[in-house]
């Protein structure tokens, strides 16, 4: 009977869709397997401790110390958050609590559009405007931790703003109205009621921003200076784990190339650790 044939096809369709649905998972597994397969052997051959804690990255002399880059990534990401979070949150708060709905409806999509600007453009602006400014007014070569932090901070602003606005908008109106009815000013309401209520969403936006900052490559290469040493001041140049890979992958061969994959492994692990910490702290706060 025709109908039962259709019904038998259903099982085939379901199976195919199941396999397709696992594509994302399989791809993730394949990527992880390949990166680790290419990168871990040299880590152990060279010595894990030396790999992570040596200061000397001279691949042509077979010296693969990643510490300057690990610290570089952490500095630059931290700097980006220091700049991006206050400005981003301020913007989100102003647009949801202290301005008209019309302004928010106008600005929010525009800010989200800005998230689409390629990172190379941000890097370029950094090179053309920010670097000379820092060099002339603050000293140093201009290509610095400071420059990278500022540009990365700007890059993660749309993410933080957009998601924080969504989180604040999702807080029930009754919270705000109740607080105002009790005589609180709008700022007191924001500080003591709205922001805590939107906390998990805001933290999520910061985590996302952090993820974007630590994974950023092109912009950082253009403005951070790429010196493989630990920066002693924000005006010193710096190299991140991501730049390390991108700068040398084009011409690396043999062990050198494997060392770059190992850099990828470390980057992978650091991102996973940071994400887990961030998720755990945000989860612990939930009542």
């Amino acid at each position: 009977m025709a109908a039962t044939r259709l019904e038998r096809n259903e099982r085939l369709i379901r199976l195919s869709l199941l396999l397709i649905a696992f594509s994302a998972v399989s791809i993730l597994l394949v990527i992880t397997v390949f990166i680790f397969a290419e990168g871990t052997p040299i880590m152990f051959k060279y010595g894990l401790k030396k790999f992570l804690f040596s200061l000397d990255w001279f691949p042509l002399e077979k010296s693969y110390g990643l510490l300057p880059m690990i610290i570089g990534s952490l500095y630059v990401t931290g700097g980006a958050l220091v700049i991006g979070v206050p400005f981003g949150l301020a913007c989100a708060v102003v647009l949801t609590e202290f301005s008209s709905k019309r302004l928010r409806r106008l600005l929010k999509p525009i800010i989200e559009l800005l998230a689409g600007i390629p990172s190379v453009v941000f890097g370029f602006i950094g090179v053309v405007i920010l670097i000379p400014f820092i060099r002339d007014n603050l000293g140093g070569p201009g290509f610095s931790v400071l420059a990278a932090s500022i540009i990365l901070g700007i890059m993660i602003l749309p993410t933080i703003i957009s998601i924080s606005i969504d989180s604040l908008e999702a807080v029930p109106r009754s919270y705000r109205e109740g607080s105002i009815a009790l005589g609180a000013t709008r700022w007191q309401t924001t500080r003591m009621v709205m922001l805590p209520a939107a906390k998990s969403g805001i933290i999520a936006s910061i985590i996302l921003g952090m993820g974007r900052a630590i994974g950023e490559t092109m912009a950082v290469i253009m403005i951070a200076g790429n010196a493989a040493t630990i920066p002693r001041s924000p005006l010193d140049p710096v190299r991140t784990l991501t730049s390390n890979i991108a700068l040398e992958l084009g011409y690396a061969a043999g062990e050198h190339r494997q060392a770059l994959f190992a850099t990828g492994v470390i980057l992978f692990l650091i991102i996973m650790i940071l994400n887990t910490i961030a998720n755990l702290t945000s989860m612990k706060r939930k009542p």
Partner: protein
Amino acid sequence: MTEAAVRAKNFRHFFGEVPTLKDITLEIRQNEIFGIIGPSGSGKSSFLRALNRLNDLVPNSRTEGTLEVHGQDVYGPETSVVELRRRLGMVFATPVPLPRSVFENVAFGARMAGVKGRERLTELVADSLRKTALWEEVMDRLDSSALKLSGGQQQRLCLARILALKPEFILLDEPTSGLDPISTMKIEETLRQLKPEFTIILVTNNTKQAARVADRTAFFLNGELVEVDRTEKIFSAPSDPRTNDYISGKFG
């Protein structure tokens, strides 16, 4: 002696461990309008949805006992659910026109069943719309969105939609609960006109509607069949005191 169109024998239905229908035994006759009344949660809708196996969409749905439609076991392994649902068309409480034109709505089920050809479909659509007394009102806007029709028109559209599949049964689950009195009247009138061709099972929260329209009526309470009889008898001299209490409004 008319053959039973629907026969239920000790039929039970559960969602997981929770029973929705307990030991239902009844017969519904060919070409009658069979009314089912009872308070919310009494199992009326569950019974209707057990007939066209719409309950199967909910996980943990389970049945016991026998339920037959024109002699065929509804839950038998041989039964094609797809075909069953075409034979038992259902109209829901809230009219749900699909976001398409009037024509496409009515033709929807027929297309899925494999009916092809613009001419055939047009004929089918016109015929179905005439049967539900909607043709006059929409014949010049068959290609406009069905969402623009009024509530009463939308419900008649839903009725036409199932008629296009040439079903044997029409199942209606509180079809006029959201409609104004005039639309309600139109639908009730349509059901009377359709009676000779179909067997109609009408679940309703409105006892007066059952009194107006149904040939026989069943009273469900808490998943049980309390009483089933000719409508005049149910409403004038019911055998069970619970039936009397419900009809006279002592509870609802």
